[in-house]
């Protein structure tokens, strides 16, 4: 039998009982639709998290802090370090002393870069002659990329102090919009240990899009950070303390392990957003489980449909066997019926899900009052859509095996004799 004839025959057989075929397809659509929506949701949220991760810091940066003395599950006392005598008490996180820094330095491999940050005390930010606003610093992360609405990324090689400010800062600072803020000079007041406030003159090079994870606060370049540390430490004498240090390395894992061996706590940018990713993954797992249940139910529907169809067509199948149709062809034709149902069902589901996702995604975000630029709730890619269509069609075909074997086993005469 030629393939084209076989296909035509299976198509005709699949829709012999139109109502039943449509109900089977609906069952498949429900399962495949759930899969597609879930996958779109996963893609959308994960790619948003990825974008936010790059906003937190470069992938090859490890943040090192002392183990927090405030940690609820602390299991040891921390030795008192006289160097920390002038550290601000009650900051919560453990503070690194000079000896800690030396310890860290001793573990570093050649090529690793240590960036220390002493405790800083920025106070306010203002444009020339503008009103002063409290300045809460987001810190300095080497190689940081933020999602910009205007301007450029920070340049760590530039010796002039640069800032990237969040979008909400544009209006209070007195600029008409994000674009006109670029290139403007602002002043950041820094409180020294001696009680004096000194201004850093910095240029706004970029305006950051509103972010969920990366922090909605101003970032500075290396030059800005150096001035900030310098001014904050004025009058401190020799003692220095550090809330955290950064290690830039090609081997993130080694550095993290080394730091932990020394009793310090170390985290990568990816680990900092790891929690949100775990939650998302967990939710998606549950949704996928529901989709799998729907597909399993649809598979039983297909088994039932095909068994009924074969029961009804016993005489027809017997006749085809009598006219010389091989068992293998009978098997293939029944399996192809399932392929037809699975393919139609999954294609409809995918089209429906993509349409619904793209139309309702923005509406859902709006309804939930989630103003998160860059977040597309649903994001579909051709690869996973293809996998869903193929996977669902394969599941449908698998469901056809038992009915198809049963049909192929019919003896021509047994089938023809059947009284129907």
């Amino acid at each position, binding site marked *: 039998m030629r393939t084209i004839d076989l296909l035509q025959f299976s198509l005709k057989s699949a829709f012999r009982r139109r109502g039943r075929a449509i109900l089977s397809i609906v069952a498949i659509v429900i399962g495949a639709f759930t899969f597609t929506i879930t996958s779109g949701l996963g893609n959308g949220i994960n790619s948003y998290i990825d974008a936010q991760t790059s906003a937190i810091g470069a992938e090859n940066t490890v943040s090192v802090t002392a183990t927090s003395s405030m940690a609820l599950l602390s299991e040891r006392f921390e030795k008192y370090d006289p160097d920390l005598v002038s550290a601000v008490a009650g900051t919560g996180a453990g503070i690194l002393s000079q000896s800690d820094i030396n310890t860290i330095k001793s573990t570093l491999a050649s090529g690793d870069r240590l960036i220390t940050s002493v405790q800083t005390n920025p106070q306010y930010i203002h444009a020339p002659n503008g009103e002063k606003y409290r300045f809460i610093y987001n810190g300095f992360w080497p190689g940081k990329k933020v999602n910009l609405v205007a301007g450029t990324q920070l340049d760590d090689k530039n010796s002039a102090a640069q800032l990237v400010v969040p979008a909400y800062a544009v209006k209070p600072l007195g600029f008409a919009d994000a674009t006109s803020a670029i290139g403007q000079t602002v002043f950041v007041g820094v409180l020294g240990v001696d009680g004096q406030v000194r201004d850093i003159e910095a240029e706004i090079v970029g305006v950051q899009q509103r972010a969920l994870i990366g922090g909605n606060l101003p970032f500075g370049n290396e030059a800005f950070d150096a001035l900030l540390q310098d001014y904050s430490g004025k009058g401190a004498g020799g003692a220095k303390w550090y809330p955290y240090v950064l290690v830039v390395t090609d081997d993130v894992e080694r550095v993290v392990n080394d730091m932990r061996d020394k009793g310090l706590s170390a985290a990568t940018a990816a680990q900092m957003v790891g929690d949100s990713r775990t939650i998302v993954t967990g939710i998606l797992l549950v949704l996928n489980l529901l989709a799998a249940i729907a597909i399993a139910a649809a598979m039983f529907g297909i088994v039932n449909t095909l068994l009924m169809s074969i029961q009804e067509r016993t005489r027809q199948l017997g006749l085809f066997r009598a006219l010389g149709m091989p*068992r293998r062809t009978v098997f293939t034709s029944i399996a192809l019926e399932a392929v037809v149902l699975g393919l139609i069902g999954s294609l409809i589901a995918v089209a429906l899900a993509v349409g619904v996702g793209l139309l309702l995604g923005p509406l859902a975000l709006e309804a939930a009052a989630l103003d998160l630029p860059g977040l597309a709730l649903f994001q579909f890619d051709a690869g996973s859509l293809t996998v869903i269509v193929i996977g669902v069609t394969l599941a449908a075909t698998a469901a056809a095996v038992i009915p198809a074997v049963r049909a192929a086993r019919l003896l021509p005469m047994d089938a023809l004799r059947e009284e129907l």
Partner: protein
Amino acid sequence: MTETVLSVRDIQKSYGSGSGRFRALKGVSLNLVEGESLAIVGKSGSGKSTLLHLMGLLDIPDEGEILYRGKSLSALTSRAADTLRNQEFGFVFQSFHLDPHSTVAENVSMPLVIGGVKKDRRRRVIEVLDRLGLADRADERTSVLSGGQKQRVAIARAVIAKPRILFADEPTGALDSTNGETVSQLLFDLNKQEGITLVMVTHSPELASTCVRQVVISDGLLLSTSGEGAAR
């Protein structure tokens, strides 16, 4: 033309098991000669239809051997038997076994479709239908046809692939006398003009007597052979 096309040697067939076991054929031997017409007659339940089905490879005997042109068919793979049924055998059944959802032409072309023939399907179908006086009904559904017309469609389907043996199981059993006459006439025309060997099961004495040879089956055994061809 006295070549034996099909030989049946001591075949036995039972249905069911245990106390419900029914021995339909208890050992029947028969030779079918190329181009002849053979009537298998007997009461209902005598085993005559079972014999026809076994000869047509529609069923498998429990014991005994069937030879087609000298070759044993028990050694045949299922696939080879399928090909034989498709190319060398034609079947006509009492209850037609047409697909009511398909057109006349689609029903008739089925053996060609199954056999993988791609060229000239439509032309061959129309040719055969024309011969049986149904060319103008080619694109109608078989469900609108009368009994006689349906059986003619079934005959068209049986001969479309130019078989060597035509098996007919009570071909006129479901037809009135006029239609029955037409159908049996067609079968004998095919037998005489095309040289197709004809094997039919019937309980109609008139139809049986039109055949060159008649065999009587009773209680699963071959009772007697009569007619012009009886000597063979």
